[in-house]
């Protein structure tokens, strides 16, 4: 398994291989940018928001799946007319999905976009 990737990866890439993106920033420039404090802030602003939230909504969804499977009595409890707990929890999944999408977009517009634009501007100016 080790040999095939090694030989292929060892070869120099053809210039401008598809997918590489454009721009004339040098490899050193990317490494330098990645190590910078500003980039660290952008990365942690993205990860510290998106990662816990992803784990949270997947856990919330799985909780709902498990309740549907193993807590039939609870899910069948009627709340208003024929509307039961299962229905309300199902609709709650819709509501949380809409809310998380809205919340993430707000966070991205306020915290991520300005930082990303500033760093991109620096890379472009360096060309």
């Amino acid at each position: 398994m080790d040999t095939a990737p090694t030989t292929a990866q060892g070869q120099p890439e053809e210039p401008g291989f598809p997918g590489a993106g454009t721009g004339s920033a040098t490899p050193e420039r990317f490494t330098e940018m990645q190590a910078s404090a500003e980039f660290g802030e952008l990365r942690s602003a993205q990860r510290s928001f998106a990662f816990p939230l992803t784990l949270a909504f997947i856990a919330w969804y799985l909780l709902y799946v498990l309740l549907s499977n193993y807590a039939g009595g609870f899910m069948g409890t009627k709340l208003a007319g024929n509307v039961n707990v299962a229905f309300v929890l199902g609709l709650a999944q819709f509501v949380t999905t809409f809310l998380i999408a809205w919340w993430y977009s707000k966070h991205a517009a306020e915290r991520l976009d300005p930082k990303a634009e500033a760093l991109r501007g620096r890379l472009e100016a360096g060309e």
Partner: protein
Amino acid sequence: MSNATTAVHHLAAGASDHRTLIITLFSVFVAATLGITVWAGRQTKDATDFYAGGRSFTGFQNGLAISGDYMSAASFLGIAGAIALFGYDGFLYSIGFLVAWLVALLLVAEPLRNSGRFTMADVLAHRLAQRPVRTAAGTSTIIVSIFYLLAQMVGAGALVALLLGATGEGSRRWIIGLVGLVMVLYVTIGGMKGTTWVQIVKAVMLIAGTLFITILVLNKFNWNLSTLLGEAAQQSGKGKAFLEPGLQYGKDGTSKLNFISLGLALVLGTAGLPHILIRFYTVPTAKAARKSVNWAIGIIGAFYLMTIALGFGAAAVVGPKAITASNESGNTAAPLLAQELGGGAGSTGGAVLLAVISAVAFATILAVVAGLTLASSASFAHDLWANVIRKGRTSEKEEVLTAKCAAVVIGAISIVLGIFAHRLNAAALVALAFAVAASANLPTILYSLFWKRFTTQGALWSIYGGLVSSVTLVILSPVVSGNPKALFPGMSFDYFPLGNPGIVSIPLGFLLGWLGSLLSKQQPDAAQKYAELEVRALTGYGAH
């Protein structure tokens, strides 16, 4: 398709009188969309136009197109049918299909848009050995797309034959061939631009049609959800249980485990579906990609909410007996509901509504198969042909021509498979496509974007491991053999008890990616390449 035959007789009374109307509506849709395709084709000049629609779509347009690409016949006809027959358990699909979009929004859409060009493999090729990862990602893209495509073709053949009232093997083959021909024309003539507009038109038709039926249903029950649910429960003959989870998946421990497996595949599959991923390249920036996912979540969410009215409405108004008499798996519940709301079989209103909803279903299938054909032929031309076989020494012109030839071949393959594999269960095929996407594609995408230590070996183990394990488990599942409803009812090699492999193959895909990486050495330039990918993915510097 023994159930299709009975269904044809049942529907024939309503359909045959006004078959002309249905055929006219179908023809108008096909002619109009082909017109759009030719118009779009005239503006398609280079590879970026062909693969990514010139990256000229707005967030809202792409949001509509994503919705059109995502809501397949399984969503429109399948979920409505599942709710009408199994009550609350059918609604569980709607929730999984929607929540899944958050993975795409939070983790995948923006970095993918920033760092890729035409295909999913572009992102992996940034930091890993190009040829082996493009071969692996191209292979899994084509396999996932063909499974998905096959599901749509099987559904299209059965459904359209059913709705048109056409009987016999000959007409079914003829219709599968026609669907294949039209989808190949969309892709080869119109490229991504044409396909995107077909998906936008379809999304608008689907939402309008569903909204109209929803309003009619709610109006019938005085805008009272509780009344609608009560009537549905009563008509179902199952009473209170119809409104609770468990009718379909609550039988025993195995079916409950199968439900968890399905739930995992649904929620993690979406962000690994190649035909969805390439849609993020049709907008100019990562911000527009975010906006398009937000629109898609809104549109798809609204649609899945309306499946409540569609499904429970069909149970209450048509009744499960009439629905199963028409189609055992409930696939005709939505058209039957439309016919009933219009005044019933034999009435003009009923025939008109049936024809309109059938045209919507047809548009739905065509738009989805076009997106799948484009995704798989793009991956073949861009990943396998241009970068692996020709090693990057091709012109854009040759690459696009290759993609068009690939679309013709993929169209031909799916027509042949669709004709011969019509006994396969369409829903099982879609769930398999989601499971394969979640097992083979998602781990590698996430590791590539977020894990510094990821290596080429990790990617290959994860993609091939996820692919082989998920497909093998399906072959050994009750879907394929060991019971009367299976693909090979006469044989039994159903050693794996679950219908969906997700609960085993998804963790395996993630585990293999991790293990394969730790057990291999990183290349000397790996850190530098990851720096470039991470900086590009987060800042959008030099994005195509």
